[in-house]
């Protein structure tokens, strides 16, 4: 824990697999027991920072005969362990923000398990809660919003600044009000957390709303720039190093990742509003 807090150890998260996205609990990466070790075979995808990580926390199937949620264990091990291959995953942004990670007969001591065998799903849910909170960081959104305000004071069409265009300005202030709501919601969550209370809906809606709002901030910046908004790479006339187009694309990835917007709506309606779960298919 301490080296991690000091920033000396970089971790990556081995959850999603090519066949297990929204239905994460169906994951197929196997860990079989051999003596004092687990032997891991399978593949993970969407693994941020895997190329520079020292350690991985990883969901693996240890009890293939149990129902899917009860057959998963949570292992932590070094990324230098023999048998691990990391391949960068290039996305629509043109950059490789994620990786694929392949495991071939990767041997990990049985003592590297967190929780008991078959309890990995519960451990993972605890970390997912934080991932979704982090994807909705209001401070990061405020920084992007301020950059948008600056942009709107700089960009001109026919000599008129974007901030002086009433339609763009109206969109800007509308986003500012939404941002204020998310910021104060964040403060409310902080107060709940400090008291050990469950804020319920106020927490469950963060990922869905924040990722959408961040995306809308980038969308307005692109619209403000007009034709210049499509410039990318190292083009002449490029604004802000192309970060708005990059953001618009990458943030769409964030709307999908960490539990898609549609999965978030299932969570909000089922856990937050107490609505019925999807009926299970007959087996």
């Amino acid at each position, binding site marked *: 824990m301490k080296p991690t807090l000091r920033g000396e150890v970089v971790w990556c998260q081995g959850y999603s697999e090519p066949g297990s996205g929204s239905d994460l609990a169906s994951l197929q990466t196997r860990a079989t027991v051999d003596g004092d070790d687990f032997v891991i075979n399978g593949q993970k995808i969407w693994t941020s920072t895997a190329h520079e990580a020292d350690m991985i926390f990883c969901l693996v199937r240890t009890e293939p005969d149990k129902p899917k949620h009860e057959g998963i264990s949570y292992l932590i091990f070094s990324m230098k362990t023999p048998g691990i291959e990391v391949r960068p995953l290039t996305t629509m942004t043109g950059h490789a923000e994620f990786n694929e990670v392949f495991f071939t007969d990767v041997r990990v001591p049985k003592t590297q398990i967190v929780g008991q065998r078959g309890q990995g799903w519960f451990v993972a849910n605890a970390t997912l809660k934080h991932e979704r909170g982090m994807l909705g960081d209001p401070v990061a959104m405020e920084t992007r919003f301020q950059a948008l305000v600056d942009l709107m004071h700089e960009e001109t069409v026919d000599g008129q600044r974007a901030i002086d265009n009433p339609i763009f300005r109206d969109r800007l202030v509308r986003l500012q009000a939404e941002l204020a709501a998310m910021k104060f919601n964040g403060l409310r969550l902080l107060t709940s957390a400090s008291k050990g209370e469950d804020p319920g809906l106020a927490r469950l809606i963060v990922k*869905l709303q924040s990722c959408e709002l961040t995306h809308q901030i980038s969308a307005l910046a692109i619209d403000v720039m007009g034709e210049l908004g499509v410039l990318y790479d190292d083009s002449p006339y490029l604004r802000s190093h192309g970060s708005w187009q990059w953001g618009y694309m990458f943030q769409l990835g964030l709307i999908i990742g960490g539990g898609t917007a549609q999965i978030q709506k299932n969570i909000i309606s089922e856990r937050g509003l107490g609505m019925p779960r999807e009926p299970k298919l007959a087996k």
Partner: protein
Amino acid sequence: MEFALSEEQCLLQDSVRRFLEQNSPLDKVRLAAGNTHTVQRSLWAGASELGIPGMLIPEDFGGMGLGFLDAAIVYEMFGRYVAPLPFLGTAVMAPLALMLAGSEAQQEKWLPKIAAGEIIAGVAVTESIGVREDAGVKAGKGTLTGKVLFVIDWAEADLYIVADSDHGLHLVLPGAKGLSRRALDTIDKTRSVGELVFDQVSAEPLPRSSADAVARVIDAGRVMLAADTLGAGQMMIEKSVAYAGERKQFGRVIGSFQAVKHLCAEMAAALEPSRSLVWYAAHALDEVPGDARLMACHAKSHLSEVGRFVARTATEVHGGMGFTDLLGLHYWFKRIGFDRQLLGGPELVRLEAAHLQGWAA
């Protein structure tokens, strides 16, 4: 520093919730809606026993001396139960105008009567936000001439507070010579608004009037309308979830279909953060003067947008029944619609917010 309601505030809100649940159920609201321009005297007397008309009025004048956050969470409950009561003008905007701009004598004369629930006070500030239909009043020597529209808590008012076109505030009595009054009928039958026409009507100026005082009265009104929409929207979501849990089609409750669940999730996701915005905007009116006006604009415009989305979506979740009079869901729909249009619609309010930040010439 906590960002939450205090224990006292939770108790206050609960007591108002219980009062309205018992005394203003939907069948009573329906009856009241048939007489929009008649004050619901017994219900208002009950609210007065709780101290609601005087909640913002200092204890020296017989009030409770509470703050705007307290008023906002009370009005949230009024929205939740579509309460047909003259709270906005009488309990919030009029007392605030008297406290900010009135003389000691005016305060001593009127505030205790408002606090006791003895009088209704209408408030006319619409033209300070935007003039339509050639409205607006000019002040002469102790008189007003012109007309004002959308006077809040118009019906049976014992006193009107009227803003003239030069940031002056005036007291006008309903029986004053040369004053004519006309009701305006809106979609929302739970609250009364009307028109006042002045022909050399004698009026008593509030001596400490200023542009700032008028603006603060409007700010407070905007935050209250946002709180009303918050409460009404919350109720529409709860009604939607309950209905979707009962109504069956294709052999399943419709709430088990993602198409319906996701509508409910979208409503909750939009409304829940706006609760924190309303809290902060109301808190800022008392405690953070530098933030108050901008946050009042944000609360008003944002809740207007979220409210419209929730109102139409909740109606859709109820299907054809939501469109009928049978369920009465439309009372909430219309309450939210009224909140959006009064004291500045979202586009107008956002323009003000831009001005406040130096973003508009």
